[in-house]
């Protein structure tokens, strides 16, 4: 025992306190306090004369422990006590009275059982689904109102979001579409040249870019750029109570914040897809020229032969659908932000992950549908 020693003294007890009673020594002091298990049956004298300037924390711990040990209610006196002792003793006993009165925080429950957690998960998913449906309904309602009142579409805001989600995304979308198409053409050429079928690289590039890759890559890039931006912007506005302020001034946050963003994506994403398609074809053409020595006129005539009337539209028609998915997920997660910075980060991440997942899921459904209807 470095910090305390308990001895018999006459009919009562003496607790000698000594050594380091700073905050840093508190772990050791608490340990020694726990080892004091003798029931104190008689008056107790605490002697502080050998402790220089004890910190508040250890004194508090001693008072708490003494109260636990001294349930019999024998008197406790202090000798050479620190100046804060009286104050702490009063505070400590008030505090214990509070705890005894049941003001203590409820103890943590047992770890949830499997069935229980499954039930809770199902319930949460149900609430979540209802929330998403409710959100969708509000958006549709605003769009419905817009027929009677075109001002509800917020043209200035719409234009700003088309600029931010569309125009500023052109460089990155172009670059990635170009590079991916070059890679596909290059790897395709490696395989096809073994059969002397170099010219079919054109078919490969055209069909894969126009039907799938142009729109899918664009949607994934936009989900990463704009889906996260939507969630973060609206989320911060939630944290600053800006959305509450809008509601209080009689404005509908869905109309002002959500609908312009989704509409902007519905307009911007197809346009970006057209650019991505063009850049993809350019990349394929360039690689064919440099690597396979297919001159440009031959490339374009082969391109025309490989196209059916629906190839281009089979890609483009998916763009507005993807736009709705990305826009809805991003804004919905943003509107869910409450209370803390951590929520903002969690929901922004969730917005990006979920919108990419939804885009790919929708793309798979389109693929099956188009095969079934021979589109």
């Amino acid at each position, binding site marked *: 025992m470095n910090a305390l020693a308990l001895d018999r003294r006459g009919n009562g007890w003496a607790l000698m306190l000594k050594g380091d009673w700073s*905050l840093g020594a508190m*772990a050791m002091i608490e340990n020694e306090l726990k080892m004091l298990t003798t029931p104190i049956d008689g008056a107790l004298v605490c002697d502080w004369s050998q402790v220089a300037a004890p910190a508040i*924390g250890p004194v508090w*711990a001693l008072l*708490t422990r003494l109260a636990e040990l001294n349930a019999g209610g024998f008197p406790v006196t202090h000798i050479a006590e620190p100046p804060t002792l009286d104050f702490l003793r009063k*505070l400590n006993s008030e505090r214990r009275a509070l705890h005894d009165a049941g*003001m203590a925080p409820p103890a943590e429950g047992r770890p949830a059982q499997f069935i229980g957690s499954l039930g809770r998960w199902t319930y949460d998913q149900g609430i979540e689904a209802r929330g998403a449906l409710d959100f969708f309904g509000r958006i549709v309602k605003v769009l419905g109102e817009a027929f009677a009142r075109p001002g509800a579409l917020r043209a200035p805001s719409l234009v700003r979001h088309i600029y931010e989600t569309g125009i500023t995304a052109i460089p990155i979308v172009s670059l990635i579409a170009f590079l991916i198409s070059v890679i596909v053409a290059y790897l395709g050429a490696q395989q096809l040249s073994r059969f002397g079928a170099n010219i079919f690289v054109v078919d490969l590039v055209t069909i894969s870019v126009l039907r799938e890759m142009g729109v899918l890559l664009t949607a994934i890039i936009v989900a990463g750029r704009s889906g996260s931006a939507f969630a973060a912007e609206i989320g911060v506005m939630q944290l600053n109570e800006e959305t509450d302020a809008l509601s209080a001034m009689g404005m509908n946050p869905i109309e002002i914040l959500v609908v312009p963003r989704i509409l902007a994506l519905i307009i911007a994403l197809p346009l970006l897809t057209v650019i991505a398609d063009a850049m993809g074809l350019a990349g394929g053409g360039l690689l064919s020229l440099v690597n396979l020595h297919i001159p440009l006129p031959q490339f374009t005539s082969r391109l025309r032969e490989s196209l059916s009337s629906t190839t281009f539209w089979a890609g483009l028609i998916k763009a507005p659908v993807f736009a709705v998915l990305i826009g809805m997920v991003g804004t919905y997660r943003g509107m869910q932000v409450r209370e803390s910075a*951590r929520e903002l980060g969690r929901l922004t991440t969730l917005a990006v992950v979920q919108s990419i997942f939804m885009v790919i899921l929708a793309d798979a459904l389109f693929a099956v549908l188009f095969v079934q209807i021979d589109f």
Partner: protein
Amino acid sequence: MPDTTSTPVIRVHGLVSRFGAQIVHDALDMEVHPNEIFGVVGGSGAGKSVLLRTMLGLRRPDAGTVEMYGENMQHLSRTRRAALVRDYGVTFQNGALISSLTVAQNIQLPLREHYSLPEDTLTELAELNLALVGLPPAAAGKYPAQLSGGMVKRAALARALSLEPKLLFLDEPTSGLDPISAASFDELLLYLHSELRLTVVMITHDLDTLFRTCSRVGVIVDHRMTTDTLNGMLQNQDPWIHEYFHGPRARAAEEVEHG
């Protein structure tokens, strides 16, 4: 009672702060003595927050020195600075509680950083600090967003007290509080000041708080600080200081205090 004979806790000498061509402080002097509550006032933009940031070593002065416990804040080694940080606590204007942590975890944050303590000890210390600032035990598990404005200020104070500093910096501790919460915060401050023998440096615009708690006041006027007791300030003939302490709001606060 403030002890004016021993070395000051804080001594600012000839402080110059500049932002480009804009001068905020010009040869500002300030001393805070042990065991006093020192109020810093000044108009908006007078440089109260800049002064606080400079005292805390968050901003480098353009000229002059800042000493805390006789040590120059600009020439501290990393280890000395880390040790000194344990000797003062700070509360920021909006609480600056970490929003992803509960109140108890906020209080334990500096303790975990500076000491290695087991979980039950940390729980006990969180309980102690909540008790010191008069928050109920149930507040421990709450997140800052679930607290009222007054409770946020108290929780911030609990966090500032957790390392048991002898010096407290408070930035507008009562701003945004209703008069009852503000008054009870004043009482809490006076109570802790007398029980724990704290030295307090407080930036405030709340005249009631100023009259109720401060033993001396420093007013930043014309880039310098005028320091005096409250009674001395009331006699001061500088136009800004006179307006500050004799305006309609000041008179009301004064009457409450002396009336």
